């Protein structure tokens, strides 16, 4: 029962934290690493464009994935956070809200 409650806390907090960290990573470019596609080179943290475009998407995924993993692990371990006080609907409302934020952020592509 305790394991089930910890798992419930973990997945709800992970879904929320991941979505929030992902949009923050994109908006403030917090990529853990940069991939230069033309030269096929990885660089730690954010590096500017050199020969060809710099790709940050992989870095954003890792930043938000590791960050959410740490936050969710901490939340599921802390006894003060009760699963009864966590609304399970947050697992979809927050990612849905972040999807709408991305539509807003990228609106310039569709309004020209």
């Amino acid at each position, binding site marked *: 029962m305790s394991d089930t409650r910890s798992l419930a806390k973990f997945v709800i907090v992970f879904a929320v934290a991941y979505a929030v960290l992902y949009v923050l990573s994109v908006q403030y470019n917090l990529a853990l690493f940069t991939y230069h596609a033309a030269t096929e080179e990885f660089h730690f943290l954010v590096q500017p464009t050199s020969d060809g475009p710099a790709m940050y998407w*992989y870095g954003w995924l890792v930043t938000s994935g590791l960050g959410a993993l740490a936050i969710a692990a901490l939340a599921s371990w802390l006894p003060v956070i009760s699963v009864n006080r966590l609304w399970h609907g947050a697992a979809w409302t927050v990612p849905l809200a972040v999807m709408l934020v991305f539509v807003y952020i990228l609106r310039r592509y569709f309004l020209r």
Partner: protein
Amino acid sequence: MIVFLLILHSLLAVALLGAITHQTISAWAPASRGAAGSFIVRMRAVPPTSYVNAVIVLYALTALLGAIIYPSYRLNVRIVLEQMQLYVPNGAFELKEHFVALGLGMLPAYWYFWHAPQLAEYGRTRAVLTALLAFIVWWGFVVGHILNNIRGFDL
């Protein structure tokens, strides 16, 4: 090699599309188990829980293959889209990239709420998570298809 991976990526996406669409329909409009009848009734009657592991594996594999071929798109396609001022398809792909990433973050919750004891209070969360993933998969599939055929569409 890239063409082979692109075709494999799209084939996996087709399988994922079928699985998540069946599951979404049966989660939102279930028919009584074993109900005989039309194609639609039988589609609604599938046991949605049986799709969960397949959806997770197919989503992860499709996203992984997409990530592998993404640099080729970035170098050979996106630059051309920008030069041709094709803003809508470019923006649609940007949305695909972010939606797929957000879908990855929802997979643990999706897995849990379908495997957790089938409590009635989780019913809506299960159904909405499934519908969101279905939307992401459909968006990714349609956008990928349009970009792959963009010359034919003359966008």
